[in-house]
């Protein structure tokens, strides 16, 4: 198992290298000079050829791409000092560059935004499971009945709505139309600063939108896995032993059905941690998702790079964790 984890981590580092190279190349060879947006911003849209040349030179865009990529990688390990036009910006290791817009070291901004995204992810994922699994189990036990069919089709309806529309409507109705008291002031309020209630009420609607939409998928997964598990021979054996039906359904059926559900959950949770662009934007939560959206709009290369690398790291780790958990849940699986 240890050797397996090490092997996976090494391949994870390879993936990160490729992702960072890919983004570097995309910007480098993009349609306009990578220095153009920052030049425009700093000169209030009076960026002349000469000024652009200064930015390009100090940012290193005149050097060969591999040389600059090498500097970037070196900065990650030992830190570096960046020069933009006539100013110098120190950037401590692990240096991911300096934001073109705020001139802040990217890493610090990234770290400051993690709690917001993490809060959204925890609450959303909790609701996925809280509603998804019990409703899925209940539907599987009543398979084929009217209640089951009504549930399956209404959930199919919800999940056929595009998520951004669903989240937008949730926000619109609950904060504007009905002005749900307490929860209408959405956003991320750090527990340490504002206390748990403000934190909770600010995120509540985002969780509801995320949770309701996501739990429909978990209901379907759980229902499917449960229907399959309940038709297995070992369920008949459990029944033949004289076990009560609760034990049969939960200890024998659900135990087996959870394995695929947990696998999908691990990946989904990783995706949530990497930042939920729509949710954060619509509910005004200053997390990584919104940040990456702004970075793309402002062509803020260092931030785009950082958010992409962050997603990759989170997904690599969550995939690895899923495999480890899978091998714990299913004794037949051996990691090698």
């Amino acid at each position, binding site marked *: 198992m240890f050797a397996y984890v090490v092997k996976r981590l090494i391949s994870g580092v390879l993936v990160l290298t490729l992702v960072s190279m890919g983004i570097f190349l995309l910007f480098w060879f993009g349609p306009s000079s990578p220095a153009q947006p920052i030049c425009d911003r700093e000169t209030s849209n009076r960026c002349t050829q000469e000024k652009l040349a200064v930015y390009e030179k100090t940012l290193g865009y005149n050097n060969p791409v591999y040389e600059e990529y090498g500097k970037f990688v070196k900065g990650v390990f030992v830190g570096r000092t960046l020069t933009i036009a006539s100013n110098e910006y120190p950037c401590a290791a692990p240096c991911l560059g300096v934001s073109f817009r705020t001139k802040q070291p990217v890493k610090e901004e990234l770290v400051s935004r993690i709690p917001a995204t993490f809060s959204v992810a925890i609450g959303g994922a909790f609701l996925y499971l809280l509603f998804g699994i019990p409703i899925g189990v209940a539907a599987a036990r009543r398979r084929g009945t009217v209640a089951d069919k009504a549930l399956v089709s209404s959930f199919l309806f919800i999940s056929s709505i595009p998520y951004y529309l669903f989240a937008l409507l949730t926000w619109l109705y609950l904060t504007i139309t009905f002005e749900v008291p307490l929860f209408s002031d959405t956003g991320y309020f750090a527990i340490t600063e504002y206390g748990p209630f403000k934190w909770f009420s600010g995120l509540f609607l985002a969780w509801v939108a995320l949770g309701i939409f996501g739990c429909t998928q978990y209901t379907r997964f759980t229902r499917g896995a449960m229907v399959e598990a309940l038709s297995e021979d*070992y369920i008949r054996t459990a029944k033949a032993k004289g076990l009560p039906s609760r034990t049969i359904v939960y200890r024998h059926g659900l135990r087996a059905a959870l394995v695929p559900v947990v696998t999908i959950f691990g990946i989904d949770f990783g995706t949530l941690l990497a930042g939920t662009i729509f949710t954060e934007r619509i509910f005004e939560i200053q997390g990584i998702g919104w940040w990456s959206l702004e970075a793309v709009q402002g062509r803020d290369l260092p931030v785009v790079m950082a958010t992409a690398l962050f997603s990759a790291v989170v997904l690599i780790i969550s995939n690895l964790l899923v495999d480890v958990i899978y091998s714990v849940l299913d*004794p*037949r699986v051996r990691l090698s």
Partner: protein
Amino acid sequence: MTSVPMTQSSAAERDQHEGPFLQVENLKVTFPTQDGPVTAVSGLTYSVEKGKTLGIVGESGSGKSVSSMAVMGLHDAKSAQISGSIRVGGTEVVGLSESHMRGLRGNSMAMIFQDALAALHPFYKIGGQLEEAYLVHHSSASKRDARRKAIEMLDRVGIPQPDRRVDDFPHQFSGGMRQRAMIAMGLINDPSLLIADEPTTALDVTVQAQILDLLQDLQREFNSAVIIITHDLGVIAEMADDVLVMYAGRCVEYGTAKQILTSPEMPYTWGLLSSIPDVTASTDARLIPIPGNPPSLLRPPPGCSFHPRCVHSSKVAGDLCSTELPELLPASSGTAHLKRCHLTDPVGVYRSEVLPEIAPELVEETR
């Protein structure tokens, strides 16, 4: 569905009751399906005494498993309609409440299944699964008692180093060991009735023989009534006291193992005998599979359900075979021997036509 008055007896009454431990009368099992009702078992009557073994044979789909699962109450009440009478130790189980049924299942009667790998839960240790079977019927027993009992049972069915193997998962056992563990789990509460549904089909020949020996030993030790379901008349010859031959959900021949194996009177049984080469241990006997397919249970053929495949129906006067269902009547070799066939001289047909096909050397002896 006929409702049968519920008789609820205590465990003490159950052990003292008169007559065979299991009595099945006029059992009918119907599954309502989208295409119409499927009658998988009908008019089935048999009984098994403690210490005796009943073999049930028949082709795939003849209703062997469905009838046995009805005895265990394993059919889903929503998808199966069951009528007739099944008395287990004097208790009528058709229509018995689920909670009473649960007290019998795994306790007074147990069932072991064909594919032990699929029938054991892949995520729980063998020992845990045995302990669970013990604890559910011994609510006052401790976890440690249950574990001791599980190890004892594994030892009894011949698992080497049972105190270590008890912590293995099913996939760590060999096929034969898994089936032994299934048997251990079935017998952990000393059931008076054990139903073995094709317990050896998935195993190779030497392991099959070991498992059958084990079952026989355990039956002697526990003095339970045993039903063994099989396709294999070789298994019947070795294990069974009585034999029930099923075709399309009905009993077509019933008798002692000797009667069925040496003087069968129903063409379907003849077909089964022809399809195994070693019933008489003769080396030049031929394997003759029964031509044709089992009938549809959704639209069973009128008359004798075997008539579309029967090569002897021409010997019956008129079109009786295709119009009238033959009754289950005493055969000529003894009162306990029943057969369902219109043939007037089955013994003659068997001697002159069937025996020369399947065991030529026997023809001389019987003359």
